[in-house]
């Protein structure tokens, strides 16, 4: 076994003797490597621009759609607006309690009324 390993090492050393790379060969390989790297880099930039543009467009559309959906989902209903007003009134100063109670009663009556009617009634005050 050792004999074979030694023999192979001997063959290897003889086969590699005098083998060398001409400087021109290396220079040519390097030039090709530079060309290929530049071509690959340009291709990468084009791909990034193409996919980046598509991504930005998709993101913008998604953001716009999200905004409208959120608006529709979170906009308060007329009933909720009136309920909020009642809650606000309930925490006002105690000296105005009677006055606020009457307003609150009125608002409670409006709570079930159509929103437009409630608004026109409020404008009377």
């Amino acid at each position, binding site marked *: 076994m050792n*004999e074979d390993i030694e023999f192979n090492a001997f063959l*290897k050393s*003889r086969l590699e003797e005098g083998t*060398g*790379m001409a400087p021109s*060969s*290396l220079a*040519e390989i390097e030039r090709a*490597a530079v060309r290929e790297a530049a071509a690959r880099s340009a291709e990468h930039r084009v791909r990034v621009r193409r996919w980046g543009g598509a991504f930005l467009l998709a993101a913008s559309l998604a953001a716009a759609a999200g905004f409208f959906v959120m608006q529709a989902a979170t906009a308060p209903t007329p009933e909720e607006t009136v309920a909020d007003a009642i809650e606000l009134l309930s925490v006002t100063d105690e000296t105005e309690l009677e006055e606020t109670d009457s307003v609150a009663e009125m608002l409670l009556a409006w709570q079930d009324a159509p929103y437009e009617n409630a608004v026109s009634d409020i404008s009377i005050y």
Partner: protein
Amino acid sequence: MAEDADLLHAYARRGDVRSLSALVKRHAAWMQALLRGLLPSAADADDAFQDTWMKVIRSAGGYRGGSVRAYLASVARRAAIDRLRRGGRTESLDVEDEEGRSAAEAVPDGAPTPLERFESKATSEDVRREVASLADGPRQVLLLRIEGELSFREIASELGVPLGTALTWMHVATVELKKRLGGAR
């Protein structure tokens, strides 16, 4: 010293030409020896050397780990096959006999080298000539083993032959070369 794989990745990912140059210099000697063993002339080997690195440059991203030397040896062998085909030569490095019998039998008998012609007297030209005269299968296995440093399993896979065949061809090549070069060792 940077690992071969790091150098190859540095070129594939960042286009770092200096890393590629370092890799070329590091692997030039054995690759030239491999190609000179596979091809009929030094000029062919020089051309195939260029072809090998062009292939590596174009497909550096295709390297999927493992021994870089084995990867390069595989690319070099394919470059040698392409060059033989382009040159319209009759020799072929495509191994067709999966049993290995014909290759073993095809090893020319040749006149036995005188015993006194010991290793110390066998020049590099003698070795190259005798290696070149081996049958395709044993010659490729020998070169891929000692220059490409491929495992026998990798060699069998590369040549598309069973593992046993690769081992047999290596044995045939070694015995034949020992005999022809003087059986010195």
